């Protein structure tokens, strides 16, 4: 019982509809009656009387009833109260109803008024009810949307007002806030765990590395040192998974060409088989993260495809970074799967071509977060092609001349 009496949406809507329907009838009746008693200036034409005779709608009987009932004209008899359509034409035609205010049907303007009042009241009620329904939905959707971006960050998660609205809305708000809070705690805990793990792994790795430094030079020692470096790289990518997926920072308008070229120049300086071609192209991105992505693609190309030919260019509304290699490519069936974390094409699961299988996953994630895309295709002439697309930003031609 209490449930029904409380401020529930159920009760609100039920009451609203009931009140609106009854109110519209009563309101329309009252207004029309009011106007009828104050005689309208224009005469009533009989044929308009036929207009309100929508048999299925309540107004006509409702009005027709009291009309003849109150007036002295029941002499017209049988047709009066019932909206039989032919009868109306007769009943209006003879000026029996001559005294104003006692018509058998309704005038055009009164009909409009009658319907107008009903439409207005029902419309208002519908608007109110729709708002009761949709406003909390909007708030929920908005909060859920911002939840995704704010999870795991320090600024906290969005909270809904638990004291506002009907019982159901307050319930939903409470449940949502609980859920968001739990997600947030777990996200933070996971981040802290990974950070602590990687810190606690790096300390023993450093110890091992220093122990190796005490040993005489030996190929075995060298290989141990390599393993330590590999493990450190794995920790690094696992850490970056949590660090970078939580935020990419503000996007800056960046000369993509300069980012990529500075990377390839550095690699060329180190003697890597890398080439570059391209023109100035400006996009909104995070230069440091973009460099990491392209660096990952280029090192993949060098590792699996002997060399990397990198180019940058604006194609319409996108800035493209293309990395071509001369390797065997990836079987078409694996082209999507290589973006999954820890996935590796079967044959690459060997020591020489190590890596944790996180690179492409992180790379695509970082690019997506900057509003771009990363795709892989096998080139017709052999080798793999990685394409990074970023939405271009148009600057006046005078700013960058090369």
């Amino acid at each position, binding site marked *: 019982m209490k449930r029904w009496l409380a401020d529930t949406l159920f009760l609100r809507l039920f009451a609203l509809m009931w009140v609106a329907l009854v109110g519209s009838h009563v309101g329309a009746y009252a207004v029309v009656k009011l106007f009828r008693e104050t005689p309208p200036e224009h005469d009533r034409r009989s044929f308009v009387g036929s207009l309100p005779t929508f048999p299925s709608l309540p107004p006509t009987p409702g009005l027709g009833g009291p009309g003849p009932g109150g007036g002295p004209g029941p002499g017209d008899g049988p047709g009066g109260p019932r909206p039989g359509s032919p009868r109306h034409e007769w009943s209006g035609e003879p000026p029996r109803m001559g005294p104003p205010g006692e018509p058998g049907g309704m005038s055009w303007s009164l009909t409009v008024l009658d319907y107008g009042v009903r439409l207005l009241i029902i419309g208002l009620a519908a608007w109110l009810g729709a708002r009761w329904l949709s406003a909390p939905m909007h708030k929920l959707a908005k909060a859920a949307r911002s939840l995704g971006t704010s999870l795991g960050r320090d600024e906290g998660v969005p909270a809904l007002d638990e004291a506002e609205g009907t019982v159901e809305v307050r319930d939903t708000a409470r449940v949502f806030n609980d859920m968001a809070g739990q997600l947030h705690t777990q996200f933070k805990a996971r981040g802290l765990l990974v*950070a602590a793990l*990687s*810190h606690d792994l*790096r*300390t023993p*790795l*450093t*110890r*091992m*590395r*220093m*122990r190796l*430094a*005490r040993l005489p030079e030996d190929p075995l020692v060298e290989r141990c*040192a390599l393993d*330590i*470096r590999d493990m*450190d790289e794995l*920790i*690094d990518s696992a*850490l970056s998974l949590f*660090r970078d997926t939580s935020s990419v920072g503000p996007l*800056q*308008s*960046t*000369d993509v060409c*300069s*980012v990529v*070229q*500075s*990377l390839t*120049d*550095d690699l060329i*300086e*180190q003697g890597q088989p890398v080439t570059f071609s391209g023109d100035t192209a*400006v996009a909104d991105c995070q*230069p*440091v993260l973009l*460099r990491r992505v392209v660096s990952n693609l280029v090192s993949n190309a060098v590792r699996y495809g002997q060399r990397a030919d990198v180019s940058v260019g604006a194609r319409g509304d996108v800035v493209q970074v293309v990395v071509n290699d001369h390797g065997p490519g990836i079987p078409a069936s694996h082209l999507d799967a290589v973006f999954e974390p820890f996935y590796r094409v079967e044959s690459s699961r060997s020591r020489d071509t190590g890596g944790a299988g996180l690179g492409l996953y992180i790379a695509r994630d970082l690019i997506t977060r900057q509003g771009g895309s990363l795709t892989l295709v096998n080139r017709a002439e052999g080798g793999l092609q990685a394409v990074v697309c970023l939405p271009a930003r148009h*600057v006046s031609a005078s*700013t*960058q*001349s*090369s």
Partner: protein
Amino acid sequence: MNRCLVVDDDGEIRDGVRDYLQRFGMTVSTATSGAEMRRLVQTETFDVIVLDLMLPDDNGLLLCRWVQETAGIPVIMLTAHGDPASRVLGLEVGADDYLPKPFEPRELVARINAVLRRAQKGERNKEAGQRVVGFQGWQFDRLLRQLVSPDGVVVALSSAEYRLLSAFVERPGRVLSRDQLIELTRAPGVEVNDRSIDLAVSRLRQKLGDQAREAVLIRTMRGEGYVFDTKVSS
């Protein structure tokens, strides 16, 4: 002989680093905590401090700042965090270099020597003071190694371009010969020669929008070298 202080709370790492550095002819003292380090720094003299960022009793960043303010000894930070943000932070509080754990022991020696060389030339900590310098509407961020154009577009620099531009902004208005530039932009593991200098100059001009024919920023002085012809503000 170079005197080095190694500060780390992990005994084996501390002793391992000490033994390794001693092989390279350094005199090494060790400290296990921030308090011990403060005491040693006040009583003895050191040429360089190798400092772990995470100590049980003290914050490495605060310790680093304290060393800079009181003794002015070069500091190389070690950290197991490996977070790019902490590198920036470490360099901003005045660390001379920053090495993530686990490091290659040889790399540590190379960094120590580089820091000592800079200290002897009296060039150290120039960067810490002015992270961003400006010239003709351009902003040069030396920590992120990037330029921001007068229109606010980020332009990234390669290592070679970064070293060259660093040399230029420290000596604006001075004619620098190719030999001087080779000396100033030398980096471990990279061969710098006339050709690579010329290449880096042309790349830099391109990125700065400086026409090679009538360059105004990096002007060619025929037979002498290059001059960075502008005012630099910090």
